[in-house]
């Protein structure tokens, strides 16, 4: 998998995680937000260009 593929996978995962975060389930909501934040952090730490 190329670096560009990784970025695409993570962006797709972030979009999916954001959909999960819309849940109204009190037991799951925080866990989904935790998942979303970890994906978001991976996207951010891979950012090497101001144009990204």
């Amino acid at each position: 998998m190329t670096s560009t593929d990784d970025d695409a996978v993570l962006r797709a995962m972030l979009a999916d995680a954001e959909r999960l975060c819309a849940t109204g389930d009190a037991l799951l909501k925080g866990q989904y937000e935790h998942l979303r934040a970890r994906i978001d952090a991976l996207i951010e730490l891979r950012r090497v260009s101001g144009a990204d």
Partner: protein
Amino acid sequence: MIQVADPFADSPLLARFAGLTRPQLEALQLAKLQRQMARLQATSPYYAERMAQAGLTADGVTSLELFAERFPTSSKADFLADQQDHPPFGARLGIAREQVALVNMTGGTSGQGQEIYGRSQRDVHQLGYLHALPWVMAGLRAGDVAVNCVPAGGMTTGGWGPGEGLRIIGATGFHVGGGLSTDAKIDLMLKLGGVNFIYASTNYLHTLTEALLGRGITPRDAFPDMHGLFIAAEGYPLEWAEKIEEHWGCRLQEGYGSTQCNGFAGSTGSAGVFGKDGARGLISLFEWETLFEVVDPETLKPTPSGEVGELVATNLSVEGSPVIRFRTGDAARYVSWEHAGTGKVWKTIEAGSIGRFDDMMKIRGNNVWPTAVDAAVFAHDEIGDYAGRVYTDAGKTEVEVRLAFADHCAGLSPDERGRVIGAVREAIKARTNVWMAVVECARAELPEFAYKARRWKDERQQGYRL
């Protein structure tokens, strides 16, 4: 009294677990157990050998009954021997050492040695979930401010689980255990401008409450937003629970958990520690995560509902260092789901009375559990804490209970103190059948425990020196 949010209304997932029929729950348990057996047969020489000893294969575990009849139990001593032979994790680990993301050890309070557990990344999430689950059931929600009084970090499960749990709930956690004195904790809590939830050992919630009252602070006035006090690790008398709820103006809740269960394995949930008619409440077990048997410790036969037995635990989801039919040594009054009246099919154990079989002391022919003395002593609001000592004097077994009055009772007259001490002595006799010498001491002479209290010393062996 502040009401607790209904967890089953707020979590459709939890409502689904609550809505299972008993056959559905057991089918889920069996499916998870079979997956666990297949995995361990391939990855854990320790458990593979036990299966072979029993003439079992993973495919052969066709029912929960067969599993309970045939699969050998393990004990702390078995795990310590396994660690000795295959350091550091033992042959039971079940994952590659490189996959161990968190190392936990048991506390070592038994004096036998510390079990070591290697957890995978997946287990670490599960560890958080098994703290989040009882706390969501107890009304904790995203955005709440929670104070964790259990010492954080280090090598224990209790050091890591609460942080993970609060994080994945989305609550704001202040991990004040261990690092701050009780007074400093109180000062911080007063500055926070709203605290919703406290997690502490039974003993430490007592210490915290006593310190607040000693400073002339009424908890329910100082913390009007508090909606949950969640305790674990130690028993207590109902009189104490009643006073705690009165002082704080909110529900007291309890969980049962351990390192072996990778967190909590049951909780009173929103119902709290009181059952019907003010009797002891029930801890509902999360049976889809941990399979529990309650057995007679001598015969290993199932304990009837209503009786005290030993909890035997099997992890259904844990990957790293799972326990399979592990004899916990924990003594609990079992109440079957049919008798529990909770509206769910989850097995239950009585809240507030969980003890340890190995804590039992044989005193003058009587089986005495520290929890029984705790219950007798802490039923008296005037008492701050105590320490017990069993020793031999001229060949006779003697028992001394040194107790200190709570700070808020500093003004009691000598007569009043004498009356309380007499009442405590009578209460201890009523609960243990043993007359003990009860004497007063200064509060500063007694140790303060940040987590599990160890109030008893058995010095009888020393009495036999020549």
